């Protein structure tokens, strides 16, 4: 009975399928008409049932029972969408659907999934930046088949959730002063740079650290005594590219925390460090004056352990003016000054008259209920939760904005100005941009080009968003968050424990700086990033950029260390003998019972000698040479430069900005992908992560897509500590897995020339390490073929035009806040051309993108 029904269904659907695949013109974004029976079943019948029916359930998949998209079969339809969009299905040996047929079918699935899942959490996989490559690269950069009709592109009208970095920068601006840009020390953290994560990798807002002059205790005591609060707005840690316009909101816990923080911030704005201390005497330029009156006992870790300078370093604002006289009347003028100041500081635009009046009412109501001081702080804190303080609107709702013939409306005035501002930085628009907005000179593409060109050319205007793009692209800042197994880490030759994590947070800052140096030259930027021999390093990086010894070298090093240790011991023994002689001499003199004054001197001398002897005996037991028997350290000499690190978060153990611009050991490194920051970011607790590395190369350089891991797969490698990773990855070479893994594993395994702490190595488990790999199915036949190692592979990839184009696609996603669609092909091609024509210029690429229709125009959806 079932077979009979199927036969009838197939007979009917063959006809329907023919109808569905008729070569009507295809316009990306237009709805695909038809339901399951009249549209989709025809495609399945033509391309899928042959292998996935109840007679031939390849991959244990029978699609005969698959009906219209609904919440119960959504996961399967999503998998079908991925397989068909990526061209994985139908298999290459089978008849392939026409391009338009494939596009229509995948569009239909997305439309139907979006509707079916609307009340079940929605369907948004197609908006995920990690799936941006699901659209065929050749359709974006090659010629289109006949029948595809593109329309002028635009982005949806929308609100962007503010990013964690933007939000903490806005709050930081209210209470801290950052140094002005110093052209002589361009790498130092300056006003407008991102608020960096602290020594432990946590993003926190610090209060008053720029005025701390002393504290009691060590690093942890400092960290505990200083006031700091964690960032509130969330984002995924393993970020890749984020989608703030679609995937993020502000939940109630975040809103509550923002309110709590707001009052702390307002109090600091009003009273400065006085709001942090237990005693006003802590605000002093002479610690002794505080020591004379401070509380008794151990103050370490307490707010009372800190003294603050009397010098005001931050800008005094209308909030300070409002609160400086607790008895003063709260006038409309003083209150509106504070409200308007705060509103613009938090939303980046001035409030409307109504908005200002609304907040005045809130503050006045609060004052009436709980008094002047508490009422002002509570009332003003509401501004921190204004919609535009947490979401940046691009709604094109101005009365005079009109849609063009394609239904698009161009951003203008504040929305356009803030979009341009957001493209580069986290601060409010500078004076010139603000003036342009208020003068009505932010309405055209030329206006945008003028401002972007100006801002890009001015080093004093910091551009942390550009750096953020590269963090999202490379993911080199994750290294400090990869937990390492102590024993596995010990085998690498690198540091263990917290020292390693701190080194990795330093490494992320170093790589950031290297990226900035390459951006300063703005020439062949991607190629430089992939192939540079320069590196930015701390002193301890000589190990991380070093070479792991072979067993023979280790033996030699052990012998050298033994000898050096012996020499140290012998020297101490000589010292001990000398001390013994001196001690005997003193004791002999004491035996002679000298007069009291001399006896005291001799006894003092004796005490010193006894202590010296004790120390020397201790050193004899403990003191060793600093030879690392596991590693040949890299010689990292070069100019002194700086990297951007956090405020003092850990007392004297805080991150230090000093770096060297050095050259990598010859033949061992090539570009950022071979630096410890990137390598460790793509490792795990025990070993390298060749799969993650391979996925990175496949997606970020080759533009390929990887479907989600099927839930039936137990994605574990065997736990065999004494077996090389390549061998343990044999499980991925099983037929069921290899279809996907052949596209990633051979791209990740060339990085086996480094161990999982990022040290270069020639042996693994005492045998020559196998670093071979292969590029397959890259889309560029010139790239395909075996590679000797990561350096060989990177060299090939860095020469590829396709790789450049894929880089441009990622830049598009970042700056547009959405994935590219087929209508964006002209924008992508123009951006790539601008990049190439200007010698590989990132500035030209950014300018092209932010003056494109995709950036400038919005399409209003139904409300």
């Amino acid at each position: 009975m079932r077979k009979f029904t199927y036969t009838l269904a197939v007979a009917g659907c063959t006809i329907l399928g023919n109808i569905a695949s008729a070569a009507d013109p295809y316009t990306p974004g237009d709805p695909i008409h038809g339901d399951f029976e009249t549209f989709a079943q025809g495609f399945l019948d033509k391309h899928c049932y042959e292998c996935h029916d109840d007679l031939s359930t390849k991959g244990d998949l029978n699609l005969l029972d698959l009906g219209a998209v609904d919440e119960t079969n959504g996961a399967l339809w999503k998998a079908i969408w991925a397989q068909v969009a990526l061209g994985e299905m139908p298999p290459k040996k089978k008849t392939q659907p026409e391009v338009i047929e494939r596009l229509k079918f995948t569009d239909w699935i997305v439309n139907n999934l979006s509707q079916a899942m609307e009340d079940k959490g929605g369907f948004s996989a197609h908006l995920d930046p990690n799936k941006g490559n699901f659209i065929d690269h050749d359709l974006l950069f090659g010629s289109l088949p006949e029948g595809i009709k593109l329309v002028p592109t635009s982005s949806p009208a929308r609100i962007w959730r503010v990013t964690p970095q933007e939000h903490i920068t806005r709050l930081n601006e209210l209470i801290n002063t950052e140094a002005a840009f110093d052209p002589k020390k361009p790498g130092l953290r300056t006003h407008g740079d991102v608020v960096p994560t602290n020594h432990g990798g946590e993003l926190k807002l610090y209060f008053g650290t720029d005025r701390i002059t002393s504290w009691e205790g060590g690093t942890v005591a400092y960290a505990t005594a200083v006031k700091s609060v964690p960032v509130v707005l969330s984002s995924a840690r393993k970020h890749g590219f984020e989608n703030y316009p679609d995937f993020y909101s502000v939940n109630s816990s975040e809103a509550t925390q923002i309110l709590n923080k707001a009052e702390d911030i307002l109090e600091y704005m009003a009273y400065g460090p006085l709001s942090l201390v237990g005693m006003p005497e802590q605000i002093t330029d002479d610690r002794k004056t505080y020591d004379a009156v401070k509380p008794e006992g151990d103050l370490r870790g307490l707010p009372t352990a800190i003294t603050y300078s009397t010098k005001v370093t931050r800008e005094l604002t209308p909030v300070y003016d409002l609160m400086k006289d607790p008895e003063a009347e709260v006038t409309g003028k003083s209150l509106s000054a504070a409200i308007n100041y705060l509103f613009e500081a938090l939303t980046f635009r001035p409030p409307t008259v109504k908005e200002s009046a609304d907040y005045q009412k809130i503050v006045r109501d609060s004052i009436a209920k709980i008094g002047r001081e508490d009422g002002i702080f509570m009332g003003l804190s509401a501004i921190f939760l204004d919609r535009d303080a947490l979401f940046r609107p691009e709604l094109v709702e101005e009365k005079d904005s009109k849609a063009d013939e394609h239904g698009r409306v161009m951003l203008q005035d504040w929305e356009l100005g803030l979009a341009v501002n957001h493209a580069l930085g986290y601060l409010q628009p500078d004076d010139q941009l603000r003036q342009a907005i208020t003068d009505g000179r932010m309405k055209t593409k030329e206006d945008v080009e003028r401002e972007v060109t100006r801002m890009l050319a001015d080093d004093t205007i910091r551009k942390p968003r550009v750096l953020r793009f590269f963090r999202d692209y490379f993911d080199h800042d994750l290294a400090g968050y990869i937990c390492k197994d102590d024993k596995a880490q010990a085998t690498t030759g690198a540091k263990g424990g917290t020292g390693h994590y701190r080194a990795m947070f330093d490494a992320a800052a170093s790589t950031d700086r290297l990226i900035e140096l390459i951006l300063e030259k703005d020439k062949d930027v991607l190629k430089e990033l992939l192939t540079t021999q320069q590196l930015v390093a701390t002193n301890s990086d000589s190990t991380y950029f070093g070479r792991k010894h072979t067993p023979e070298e280790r033996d030699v090093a052990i012998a050298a260390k033994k000898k050096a240790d012996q020499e140290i011991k012998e020297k101490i023994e000589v010292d001990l003998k000398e001390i013994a002689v001196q001690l005997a001499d003193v004791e002999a003199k004491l035996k002679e019972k000298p007069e009291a004054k001399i006896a005291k001197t001799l006894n003092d001398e004796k005490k010193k000698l006894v202590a010296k002897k004790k120390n020397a005996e201790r050193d004899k037991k403990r003191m060793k040479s600093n030879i690392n028997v596991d590693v040949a350290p890299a010689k990292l000499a070069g100019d002194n430069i700086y990297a951007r690190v956090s405020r003092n978060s850990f007392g004297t153990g805080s991150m230090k900005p000093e770096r060297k611009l050095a050259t990598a050991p010859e033949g061992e490194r090539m570009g950022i992908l071979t630096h410890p920051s990137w390598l460790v970011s793509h490792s795990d607790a025990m070993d390298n992560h060749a799969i993650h590395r391979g996925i990175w190369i496949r997606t970020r350089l080759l533009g390929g897509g990887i479907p989600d891991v099927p839930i039936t797969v137990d994605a574990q490698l065997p736990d065999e500590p004494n077996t090389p990773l390549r061998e343990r990855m044999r499980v991925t070479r099983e037929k069921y897995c290899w279809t996907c893994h052949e596209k990633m594993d051979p791209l990740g395994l060339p990085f086996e020339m480094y161990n999982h702490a990022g040290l270069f190595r020639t042996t693994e488990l005492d045998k020559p390490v196998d670093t071979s790999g292969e590029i397959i199915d890259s889309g560029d036949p010139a790239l395909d073929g075996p590679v000797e190692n990561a350096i060989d592979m990177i060299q090939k990839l860095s020469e590829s035009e396709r790789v450049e184009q894929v880089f441009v696609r990622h830049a598009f996603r970042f700056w547009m806040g959405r994935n590219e669609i087929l209508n964006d092909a002209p924008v992508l091609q123009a951006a790539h051309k601008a990049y190439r024509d200007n010698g590989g210029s990132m500035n030209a690429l950014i300018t092209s993108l932010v003056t494109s229709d995709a950036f400038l125009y919005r399409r209003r959806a139904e409300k």
Partner: protein
Amino acid sequence: MISRRKSLQTIASGFGAAFGASMLPDISQAASTASGGPKRVIFFMQNQGMDPATCIPAGMKTGGSLAKAVLPEPIKALEPFKEQMHIIAGLHGKHTSPSHSAFFGALGGYRGSDGVAPSASTIDYELSKALPETLLPHLCVGMDSIENMKAKPTVANLSARGAGSPIFMHSNPNHLYQMLYGGISQGDIRNQHEAKSSMYDRIEQMAATEGKTLPSGDKQRFGEFVQGFNDMNGLRERLSKVSDHLKNFAPTVDDAYTNPEFETDWHDRILDLGISALKSGTTSVLTIGSGRGEIFGAWKGLGIEQQGHNLGHMKQPDNPIWVKIRQYNSRMLVKLMEELESVPEGSGTMMDNTLIVYTSNNANAQHTNGANWPVVLLGNCGGAFKTGQFTQLDGTRPINALYNSILRTTGVEADRFNMSDQMAAKFDSGTGPLKEILA
């Protein structure tokens, strides 16, 4: 659309708690969880480590009944509760980097350290989701020096609702009282409460108005934001609806709230507020951070002049200072149990359905590798846990296994808590719960 339940849970880190949607449960008729596990769980985390000698009866090496054992002096106050007690030694937290404190890792079972953000949710938050819903499923409170509690009344070091999402703990009893009982108060507390409610209402109205004009795709995301205010205001409304009930449990506000002589005056009030939230049925999970998860803290009210870091450098056994601190902990634990025993629940009392986990965020010492992480459990939760005994484990199972055990008794099916198979291969000799502690 975000579910009502989920949206309410997400308020957790805002108030240091998550608010449930339901009305307060009828305490006298409240049923046990389907699995017979706890209805409420309390984590009492004393900082600076818990030396095994301060909690394990002298001479007990291999485990066994506590019936004839004599509890060490520091926890002697718990002697009458031995039958409800299970002392566990030999769990480990080597993977949590506990020296100086594992911070979020202590309740998360993952690497933590000073300045390291949580990498996943913590057990207390997970339990707050799994246990029968209450108005305020999770409350975190912290006890510290008076200076720190005043200057930093909320800090987040121990609890988290997910990666990068810390939950704040309350340390100022005035703020906490206002949050819990503002609606039934008088005077300044009442005024503060009303002013805040009024402000929330106004912000919600403004946000709702702005949300109306958004494109359809954004309405949902923005709706989540507006819903947050709705929930916050809703909690206030729900609390006021049961104000008659709450009045029975609200502690009396005395001078120590505003003029504490010692920090312990505030510690005691914070504990009172936590107990009141449990007894009133407002909350089901209470996390107490004595020392707030850091390596400082002060107990001058106990006559201990030294404070902070040095306390951690001292040997704990037979140290008069640590005896006093641990005795103070024990008095607090006794108070918790006696108060919960005073409230009927089902055929017994609230304590019958409660589990108290008394341990440290530093394993056994301030400077430790976490190889031994002593824990004292109090309460058998209707027979779900073995009690009246000491269990010495072999140091091969992590604290995650304990957390998994508790979670499973609430009906959550999982083999591990916050531990991948790869990590487990290194750090866990078994899977599933600790059979040694489950009845």
